């Protein structure tokens, strides 16, 4: 599986949303939704982005898709024959480029137009990119429906005929229609029932194996992330605080926030009472983050340096980047 080719590279990505106030809509400051984020994804792999709500993970997904434009930074897409800088594409080039990356939405209800049949929904990317039409298009849609485990005789049904899980399958089929290189999945299972989540996660994994897909997986659920990803990036207030191979994130973690997150996850291990560590306080305000390390007000290890000096993301062990002054000294507990 691993062919070690980097597919997507994100360098120093920033997205600041201006805060406008008053009658004249004057800019009164910025929400630093994404603040200097860098990472890369290899072809055929899954990189997951975890973090609490409002940490900027969804924004990163939208930035990669160029649904919104980054304030600064680079997003480089490595195709087999060329490199594309997504943030620099013109509208017209962008349209042609869209087929390489697709999105799976969180909400299986609002992401499907209720006034279109399954055929129209899954066929839309094919149609608007002039890949197929008519009978060819229908055949391709049937093929896609079978790929995601939907009965193709439901081709002409409308979304209201399907349950949440089935709708999410339609969403997956639509995302796959153009054979994209990269699929961005934004909390694809969090709106689903427990028993359905597993179906969709399995489906995503199976398809990845079959088609050598690359996933950028956004989630708040650490157990799902552990199950699906090769690499995990942990975000806090617009920044990546730790990024490493999944195993390392869960077993040899280096950032106190990751530790706190892991400790907070409820587990099924009856009888066994583990020692837990609770984060106090609330997530910092991205419009007005604290000085120094953004995490320091909630960090139980914080020292005076953390309060004043901003931390860069540094490679502590090969392939393991941490944004913490004390990364080398701390001995943190994994799962």
């Amino acid at each position: 599986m691993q062919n070690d080719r980097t597919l997507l590279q994100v360098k120093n990505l920033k997205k600041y949303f201006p805060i406008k106030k008053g009658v004249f809509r004057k800019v009164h400051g910025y929400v630093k939704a994404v603040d200097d984020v860098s990472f890369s994804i290899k072809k055929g792999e899954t990189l997951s982005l975890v973090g609490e709500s409002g940490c900027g993970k969804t924004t990163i997904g939208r930035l990669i898709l160029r649904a919104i434009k980054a304030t600064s930074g680079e997003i480089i897409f490595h195709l087999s024959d060329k490199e594309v800088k997504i943030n620099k594409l013109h509208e017209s080039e962008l349209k042609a480029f869209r087929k390489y990356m697709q999105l799976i939405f969180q909400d299986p209800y609002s992401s499907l137009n209720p006034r279109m049949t399954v055929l129209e929904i899954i066929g839309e990317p094919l149609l608007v990119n002039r890949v197929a039409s008519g009978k060819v298009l229908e055949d391709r849609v049937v093929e896609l429906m079978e790929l995601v485990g939907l009965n193709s005789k439901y081709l002409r049904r409308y979304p209201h005929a399907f349950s949440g899980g089935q709708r999410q399958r339609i969403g997956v089929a639509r995302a796959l229609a153009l054979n994209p290189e990269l699929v961005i999945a934004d909390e694809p299972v969090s709106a689903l029932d427990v028993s359905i989540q597993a179906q969709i996660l399995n489906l995503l994994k199976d398809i990845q194996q079959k088609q050598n897909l690359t996933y950028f997986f956004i989630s708040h659920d650490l157990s799902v992330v552990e199950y699906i990803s090769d690499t995990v990036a942990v975000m806090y207030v617009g920044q990546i605080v730790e990024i490493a191979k999944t195993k390392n994130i869960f077993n040899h973690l280096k950032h106190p926030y990751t530790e706190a997150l892991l400790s907070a996850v409820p587990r099924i291990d009856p009888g066994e009472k583990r020692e837990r560590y609770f984060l106090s306080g609330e997530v910092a305000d991205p419009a007005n983050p604290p000085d120094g390390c953004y995490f320091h007000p909630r960090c139980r290890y914080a020292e005076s340096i953390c309060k004043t000096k901003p931390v860069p993301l540094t490679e502590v062990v090969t392939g393991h980047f941490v944004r913490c002054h004390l990364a080398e000294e701390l001995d943190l507990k994994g799962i």
Partner: protein
Amino acid sequence: MRLFKARENIAKQEKEKYFVATPRQLMWWKFKKHKLAVVALYVLLLMYFLAVFAEFVSPYNIHVRHTRYLYSPPQKIHFFYNDKFHLQPVVYKLKFRIDSITLKEIYYEVPEEVYPVKLFCRGERYKWWGLFETDIHLFGVKPGGTIFLLGTDRMGRDMLSRIISGSRISLSIGLIGVSLSFIFGLILGGISGYFGGTTDIIIQRIIEVLRSFPTIPLWMGLSAALPMTWSPLKVYFAITVILSLLGWTGVARAVRGRFLTLREEDFAMAAYLAGASKWRIIYKHLLPSFLSHIIVTITLRIPGMILGETALSYLGLGLRPPITSWGVLLKECQNVQDIAHHPWLILTVVFIILTILSFNFIGDGLRDAADPYAT
């Protein structure tokens, strides 16, 4: 639960039919549940039918003065005459005498002289929409008899014929006015919602200003500016434009609001990310979703237009004779004495209310049906 909301009208075994039902079918099924709205729909269809075939449906030409029957009260249709019940309805001969004290005409029926009411009766010649000339009327009586079902006015013109004929103006002014304001509103609201920014702010400001004008004084001011020398047709269109000039703000607001929410919908984003063009997103994804809501808005706006015309004409600022509209007809009821002595003149009101009521019921039914996917 979302899945099961809109399928009231289908039996279980017809599930598949429901699953592949188009939005329009779902809306119709939902609309049909609103019984009053369905009734209102038929009432309105009938009204518009009358308006279209006015010359044929009305027994008399509207401008013909029956000088011997000024202010004649409504005549009754009798099935029971000659002491027997007949299937063939008749009207009696209408005569009057002068009251010796008040010197007023008092009308009375002469049961001895009966005139059968005949369908497809020959009467005055007319040209339907100026196209086909004929003298066939839906119903009528032989010459010598009269059939004034709703009485006559001060010049002896048949009120029923006038009301039916007036509906042509009054009902069309609502439709045309709404269409105009719909076009204005759709374009300006769409621009406002789609482009946002400064354009949006400017358009919103204009709407705000227009909305803070009390409509009637503004309409009055504008209509007063119409030159008296204009032809009736010109006046008609000018009034329509004036009415729609204020109506569009509501449509524009509704369009903009829907646009803003729909633009944020995931499925619009999905289409955008799939590479769909702006126009495709608008006409394939956004338009169908809010068209039904806009239709509700404009349905509920038609009554306002009709009433606007009626009110302006009633004040003498709108349409003027020889155009016959409901407002013009009501102008005859300027003071209490008129109405008190000739109460049938106010029957126009019944038609107006019926129409407005119907539009409101239909709007209500449409609102329920507008979003068949709502939870």
